[in-house]
């Protein structure tokens, strides 16, 4: 089980992480579809990668009126696309202003690249050390995530 950590001072703003993520999850080369994104709001040099904190009690899931986001025991949420009504409540609920929508209006939920042999794509591609995947100390219950991502991870 991984956790992602960010060292914003090491980020160079190259967007490799965003592009790796969009390709891994959407089969698209378009940084806007990344589940990770870099905040360029301070213009020049302050690049700040935004990642999902995998909250223990995810507000995004609590805010979802139709149960399209399901809180996971190990933290974070699982997204069930069929149920989503594209209301954006989850985005407003995210206390870290991290969560964003795809162009189709569905939330871009980080699954920590569950099941990928080389771990989260964003962290593996960032050699600057701005995004680091660390092993989570406690054993996690991964049942639901496995079930949800069964096909994608073969």
């Amino acid at each position: 089980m991984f956790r992602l950590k960010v060292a914003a001072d090491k980020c160079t703003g190259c967007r490799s992480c965003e592009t790796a993520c969009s390709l891994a999850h959407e089969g698209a080369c378009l940084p806007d579809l990344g589940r990770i994104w870099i905040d360029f709001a301070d213009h020049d040099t302050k690049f700040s990668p935004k990642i999902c904190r995998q909250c223990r009690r995810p507000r995004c899931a609590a805010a979802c009126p139709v149960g399209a986001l399901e809180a996971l025991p190990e933290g974070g949420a699982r997204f069930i696309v069929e149920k989503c009504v594209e209301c954006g409540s989850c985005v407003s609920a995210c206390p870290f202003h991290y969560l964003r929508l795809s162009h189709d209006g569905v939330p871009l939920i980080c699954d920590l690249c569950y099941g990928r042999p080389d771990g989260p794509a964003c962290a593996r591609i960032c050699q600057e050390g701005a995004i680091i995947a660390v092993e989570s100390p406690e054993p996690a219950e991964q049942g639901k995530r496995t079930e949800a991502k069964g096909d994608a991870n073969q």
Partner: protein
Amino acid sequence: MRGGYMGKILRVNLTHGTAHSEPTDPEMARDFIGGRGFVQKILYDEVPVGANPLGPDNKVVVAPGPLSGVFMPSSGKVQFGAKSPATGIMGDANMGGHFSVEIKYAGYDAIILEGMGNRPSVVVIDDDKVEIVDGSKYWGKGSSVAEKMIKDDLGEDFQIAIIGPAGENMVNIACVSHDYGRQAGRCGIGAVMGSKKVKAIAVRGSQSVPLADPEKVLEYGKKMFYGCFEKPGFREWTPLGTPGVTPWVNEVGAFPTKNFSTTYFDDHEEIGGEALKERIWLTDKGCFCCPTPCGKYSRTTVGKKSAYVEGPEYETVALLGGNCMLSTIEEVAYANYVCDELGLDTISGGNVIGFALECAERGIITEEQIGRSVKWGDIDSFVYLAEKIARREGIGDILADGVKVASEKFGQGSERFAIHIKGLEWSGYEARWAPAMMLAYMTCDIGAHHNRAWAITYDVAKGRESTEGKAAKVIELQRIRPSFDLLGCCRLQWVEIGFEFDYYPVMFEAVTGRKITEKELYDATDRVWNLTRTRAFLELPDFSRASDYPPARFYEEPIPTGPAKGKLIKKEQLDEMLDDYYELRGWDENGTPTRETLEELGLETCIHDLERAKIL
């Protein structure tokens, strides 16, 4: 066209204030690949011979490549081209950052700016929605100041290509800037944008690059990144970036110093990569998907003045440092900041100001003409001259045309030390004791530029006295390096950390679905090379073998000081190399492409045009 191409080219007419898109020509994609290939092909076909570079008939073509925006190392290069006001032949320049990829995401393989507006404007491209908006409030502002204003007005997610006051005033050495410190510097493309009254192009897109085989792209893209990480140079080269090479260039006696009068700068340790990293560096700044960020964002303080600036990269260190003798990294970075804000190419800017300082020292131009006393290594003199040039005031109005025109106007033997070829000022490698590098500058299709063939390492490795085999090596490099310009990605991983070229054709196939060999890629670069050469003969009645020679300083004055003291390549040696080069290129003794060569490359149009001009 299965993948890699967006399938559309955007045409913006400034005269009529209209914009529409056209399908990308699949034959052009097949033969010219993209990027610089598209730029030069479109210019060749659409700009009439003899067009005034600063008139309505000239066009600015901006093109990413088929690999731009794809998940792989450094896939974010964009090419800018136009008929150059500095050289009178077709020019181009490239830059990194995020502009290239945003053009792709907006759905275009190229953007063509044509006609001429009569009011300052900004071309705003938001996917299919294209508007030419009033740019009056940004006009006159410095590049990064105006870039920030535009981002504040339109949104942070727009990527901006912008000109400074130098471009607005149609200074021949004006660049196009982006992302607060990336420049497409060469050939005065900024002046052409200025002539069209286009302050900036702002782009935002939301479309993915089509991929023939997305899974292969992911798998192979990762492989390419991991391949870079494993190179020893990855850790060694990246921390200092391009200025890290400064001590080596001095040791081998090739550092432009005091307007190229000598090749070793005593204070080089004060202006190189180490000094940058220790004294002014704040953070690395990477272009799109770059694993080896060469952008070194810095804060510099000189006296009471202080500035944030990206860079200086090696060329700036060489031309503003050595060539104008600014002897601390703080001063070089400050001068870099001044050029960036004014929108001056630091390579040509360092040449022109070095030339002016030498003219002043020799009494060719007087204190009265200049308006104050100026001296080598003085930051105030530098800033004064840069501002005069960018605003075309006083002596600056003459210097703004570049060293070629300025030396013709000043006369008095100043042509000897006006360091240019074909009207384009020399970049950061003094080549009096580097025959292959010299030949690379002589034969570069836009003028004295290093990026088509950085051959100096070959000279150092294989012997610097001999001209043997140098032409073949230069041509080899002129095929590999421009391949990156066609593909729309950066060459620095290949150049600096030894990343293998073999990866690129494989990635090209995964992205586009078209199998391509290295040979086919090199043929495409040859096609561009012969197209630009043909066009030069058509544009300039006196274009000939003589256009390929460096200024007299470079074959008549031995290097006076430093490790290369006494060294010189003689004119006969230059002739030998040119003879070899023309033969290997399939050109005649005057450097004109032969009928057979053009036929082989499928450039029938060029044959027809040369025949009509009675050159062939």
